[in-house]
């Protein structure tokens, strides 16, 4: 029996989208994104350290203004997807050297029998490659608008 297909727009909840990130640095952006999780302060700190280690291994800035910080961690028991947007963009050492404006934080538990982590990671990376600089994801006014646009883009994948 196959598993149900994963739908990004159904995983993403309005409360997990922050369209006006304030931070001006990579670490600041990561901290703001981690602050959107359900973790307590200590666990947020542990996760932040983990994400910074992952960035040192190679930037998750995949170009076109998008970065997808990600890692697996024991700290959460289900996959978590958090979105953040920065108006001016931040240097994330992206592949195209351009500032990153849109951030998708993905945290997955080690215990992930359906391998949702790689599926979600792959879908978002694919979706990001099809974005243009004027895409509505960069200008959506509300988290709900953002999810609608994500849904449209996902259907085209």
């Amino acid at each position, binding site marked *: 029996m196959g598993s149900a297909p994963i739908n990004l727009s159904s995983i993403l909840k309005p409360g997990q989208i922050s369209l006006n990130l304030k931070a001006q640095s990579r670490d600041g952006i990561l901290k703001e994104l981690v602050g959107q999780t359900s973790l307590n302060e*200590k*666990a947020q700190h542990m996760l932040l350290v983990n994400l910074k280690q992952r960035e040192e291994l*190679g930037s998750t800035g995949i170009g076109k203004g998008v970065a997808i910080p990600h890692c697996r961690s024991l*700290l959460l028991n289900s996959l978590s997807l958090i979105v953040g947007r920065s108006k001016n963009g931040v240097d994330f050492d992206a592949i195209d050297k351009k500032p990153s404006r849109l951030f998708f934080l993905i945290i997955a538990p*080690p*215990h992930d029998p359906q391998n949702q982590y*790689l599926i979600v990671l792959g879908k978002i*990376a694919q979706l990001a490659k099809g974005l243009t600089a004027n895409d509505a994801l960069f200008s959506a006014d509300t988290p709900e608008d953002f999810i609608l646009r994500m849904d449209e883009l996902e259907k085209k994948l």
Partner: protein
Amino acid sequence: MIHPQLELLVTLHDLELMIKESTEEANKQEAMGFKIEASQEHLNKALSEVEKQVDPEILNRYKKLKQKYGRPVVPVINGVCCGCYIMMPTSQATNVKRNQTITNCGNCGRFLYWPAV
């Protein structure tokens, strides 16, 4: 609050997982457009720094469990140890001091961590 030694074990586990996946899944991630540096030197260094802080007796047990099972720290989800899939005794599953003490599964012996939902 989380027990300081358990915090180190979780950090150790997550770091080891990152090292493993950055080796085994590097091709998959690179195909998605991510950069993965060949050198994991900084991760190995971070790992040994964490190991130095772990109580030697606990570290010894961690390493033995790793050798035996691969994953020495496992989450408890819905009262079940995700290492051996045995339901915890009620007293352990409902322990309000979860994560504040070092706990091992009564069946497989793995270190237990109660993650956030």
